């Protein structure tokens, strides 16, 4: 029996198997830790730390009940949502406007600004905590969500600006010029013409700013003093006393933390490739 000749875009069975085998392995590794935490979270407390490792062991939602009703978890969760959403909105607004200015206008100070962005990525955040703390204190912002939102913006905005600038660079300047002739000033052009076209870039920015704020620990511990105002990252640290981590609470909490992150991720992921690259191809 004669074999059908292989088309250009087809590959041999062996290559196909190898491709899928590699990707399946990679996917398994990517998902496994998450899955394992989930599996642990539905084990009874003593089974998590048993030295006999099992996949599923008396599945129960007890840990979740415990986290949700016996701790401040819901409050922390709400705090985190507020902080992350505000960081996302403010961070996007800041990086989009700055990115647009950097992409379209030649203004004195532009080069310096680009350098500042790079330098801010270089100075370790861990060390900035103390001085930022004193600044926040003098602004009376300690123990407020605003302090966190502002601090997270400093972390996320440089990269987002740089990435959005790359994205805006891919939008033809003709459109700005057409808009200028249609009677729009720079701000209206940005709002009516550029932003609607920059959705992929904005989606990545949203994703990035949200995640920056969502799981952050160091600033949150430093700036927030009262239990009721803690965010998730900081709150969960209470489950990790030095010698006796409460794995039952931790695992359940970790799974609950990942849910909103996955939601944001789900909406952004379609755009990630297009959005990030434009930034990546431009220095």
């Amino acid at each position, binding site marked *: 029996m004669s074999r059908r000749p292989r088309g250009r875009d087809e590959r041999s069975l062996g290559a196909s198997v190898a491709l899928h085998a590699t990707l399946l392995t990679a996917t398994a590794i990517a998902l496994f830790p998450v899955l394992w935490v989930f599996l642990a979270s539905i084990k009874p407390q003593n089974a998590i730390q048993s030295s006999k490792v099992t996949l599923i062991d008396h599945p129960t939602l007890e840990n979740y009940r415990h986290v949700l009703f016996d701790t401040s978890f819901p409050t922390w969760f709400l705090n985190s949502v507020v902080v992350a959403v505000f960081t996302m909105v403010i961070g996007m607004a800041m990086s989009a406007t700055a990115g647009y200015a950097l992409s379209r206008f030649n203004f004195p100070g532009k080069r310096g600004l680009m350098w500042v962005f790079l330098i801010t990525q270089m100075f370790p955040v861990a060390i900035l905590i103390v001085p930022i703390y004193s600044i926040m204190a003098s602004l009376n912002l300690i123990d407020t969500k605003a302090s966190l939102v502002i601090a997270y913006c400093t972390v996320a905005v440089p990269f987002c600006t740089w990435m959005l600038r790359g994205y805006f660079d891919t939008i*033809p300047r*003709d459109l700005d*010029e*057409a808009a200028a*002739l*249609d*009677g729009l000033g720079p701000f209206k052009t940005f709002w009516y013409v550029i932003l609607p076209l920059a959705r992929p870039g904005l989606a990545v920015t949203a994703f990035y700013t949200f995640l920056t704020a969502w799981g952050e620990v160091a600033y949150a511990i430093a700036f927030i003093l009262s239990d009721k105002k803690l965010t998730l990252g900081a709150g969960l640290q209470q489950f990790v006393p030095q010698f006796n981590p409460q794995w039952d609470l931790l695992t359940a909490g970790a799974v609950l933390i990942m849910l909103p992150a996955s939601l944001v991720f789900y909406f952004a992921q379609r755009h990630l490739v297009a959005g990030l690259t434009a930034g990546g191809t431009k220095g």
Partner: protein
Amino acid sequence: MSTPVVFDAATRVYPGSTTPAVDSLDLEVRAGEFLVLVGPSGCGKSTSLRMLAGLEDVTSGAIRIGERDVTHLRPKDRDIAMVFQSYALYPHLTVGENMGFALKIAGLSKAEITARVTDAAKVLDLEPYLDRKPKALSGGQRQRVAMGRAIVREPQVFLMDEPLSNLDAKLRVSTRTQIAALQRRLGITTVYVTHDQVEAMTMGDRVAVLKDGILQQVAAPLELYDKPANAFVAGFIGSPAMNLGTFRVEDGAAVIGEARVPLPRTATAALTESEVVLGFRPEALEMVAGYAPDAFAVEVLVAEELGSEAFLYGTLEGASLRDPQLVAKVAPRSVPPKGSRVHFRILPDRMHVFSPATGEALPTA
């Protein structure tokens, strides 16, 4: 209610460059006129147009639209519409929204916008497409949307920067006539940029020829063809291009091969060198049988037979020319074969004489 446009010594020097991209441009576009800016690539056509649109700063000089000095006005305050080479349609808006966008920004009522967009769409045969996004249109349709966006504005001036260059040859020809007709009907002053001299000749009321940022000549198409102001314009306008060559001058006649071609007395009088630049169009050559004192021999390299007309490409024999290539228009269907040797003479009143030093046309009458 159309408006004239004046470039008054308008100059544009790009930052970081020393030579001006447009050098002291003096040009008046009359009210309601269709003026074509033409010239080779990089000569500053787009820059001139963009200065008028306000998209490029004017380094020195002034630009006026009607009575208004617009030199330092923002584009949006100039009441100008422009058709871009890339069309620059907003990808996220439908055709209708694209066309009505400027009106919406200007704060017109919904009903008014709809009425004007529908009118324009009717004129441009775009009615079936009003709800589509530009992505779902063909090149020609996008071009018409770009036109529509300009005409709904009813601006004082239309600007178009090579609006046809993305269309295929056939569509370009038909769109060309549509645009010209539309402009005549609307009577709006129009500046049109192209590098295609056929477009320039067929569309413009007048044509302005630019080279290296300097205006060479402004005239009606036929005048440009018949009385080019210098050798550059002569060579640029017309297809196939005018034959141009530098020849020795002896006793008031140019030496072309073995032939002596008498020059007009006015021209020799103005001539300071012993050489002259002669220009003659392909159709200004006449084939002669056998010998004549002013006829020169040409060896045929290629014959282009088009049915209604024919062109011979040949080398000028015995000529001390840098480029001895020559094009002649001959009667079709009896073209001399390749490799044969034929004689031509220049029709005396169809000859152009230019100074070899300046390239300026010398008086022939």
